[in-house]
């Protein structure tokens, strides 16, 4: 499978390095290795969701209880979570670390992924959610750590967009 196992491991190790103890996830192709790594890690609480918005509530509960968490989802899952982000995380000042696979960018071959990619960054800006791209392995650890630092100091959601260049190993 051309999803990068090496880069998935880099991301997972960075999350562990930030003290993440709970991951909520709704798998999609780019996230399969990350979800598997969490599932195989006895120290990680992995919560597999029916819909991504649940993860906002789960992360809110974990944060108030003192457990650091992150959400793994596709950008369409971010779209499906927006009321939870606004009415739970933003209203109640919850630091939310969202790792969002950025489907529908240049290089996207699946026609059904192409609408979400075009609106993802505009929606993040409209919601005033600070975000950065993860597109090279050498900056993954630092950007995740800095994103978490801002989330915790501001008590607000932040987003990291997992790009095709990082997650997908092109075979042609």
């Amino acid at each position, binding site marked *: 499978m051309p999803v990068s196992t090496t880069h998935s491991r880099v991301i997972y190790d960075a999350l562990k390095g930030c003290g993440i103890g709970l991951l909520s996830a709704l798998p999609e192709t780019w996230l399969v290795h990350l979800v598997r790594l969490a599932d195989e890690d006895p120290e990680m609480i992995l919560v597999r969701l029916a*819909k991504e918005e*649940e993860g906002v*509530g*789960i992360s809110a509960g974990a944060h108030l*209880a003192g457990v650091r*968490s992150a959400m793994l989802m596709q950008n369409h899952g971010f779209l499906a979570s927006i009321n*939870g982000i606004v*009415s739970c995380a933003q*209203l*109640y000042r919850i630091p939310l670390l969202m790792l969002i696979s950025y489907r529908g960018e240049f290089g996207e071959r699946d026609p059904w992924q192409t609408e979400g990619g075009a609106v993802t960054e505009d929606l993040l800006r409209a919601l005033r959610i600070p975000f950065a791209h993860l597109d090279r392995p050498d900056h993954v650890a630092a950007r995740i750590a800095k994103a978490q630092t801002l989330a915790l100091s501001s008590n607000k959601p932040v987003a990291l967009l997992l790009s095709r260049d990082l997650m997908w190993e092109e075979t042609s």
Partner: protein
Amino acid sequence: MTRLEALTAVYRHLERRIVVTNMGAVAAELQSIGHRPNFFYLQHAMGLASSMGLGIALSKPGHHVIVVDGDGSILMNLGSLTTLARYRPRNLTHIVFDNESLLSVSTARGDFPTATATGSDLAAIAAAAGIPRTAAVSTIDAFVEAFDGALAANDLTTLVAKVEAVGPPAYVTELALLENRFQFQRYLRSQ
């Protein structure tokens, strides 16, 4: 049975436990009986009270969490029942007050009925989702007995209580949302 009567009847159990409620009437009513630092009222984000309870229950496995939900809220997030069942936190009790309506937008019973008014059975849905213990009650005595049973069972329970569609005179209380949030966080982290 009214929701206020039901809350009053089990308040002695609530006051020493972690409690997360959904929005509106139930939050104002529980505060009218007596607010505690271990009570959190999720005043928006309908459907996420059960998810938040799950996050706390998984993070604090040595503490019991009581989620007080409503029919309108859980109907917005039925998938949460499947996620709860999947992880089966034995330290979580999920109460659903079912007044068969979206009360906070209504002026009288029946203005805005939910699907439970036309036959949807939340206890059966919870059981079919895989929640190991479920019950449906419609009297105070049955509610208190089922509530006591849920606490004693030490297993995940969804208890659906049919209640009258009546609420408090006002929904906004003196407790600010963020005051409640930081007080509750301080409580949880001190445990």
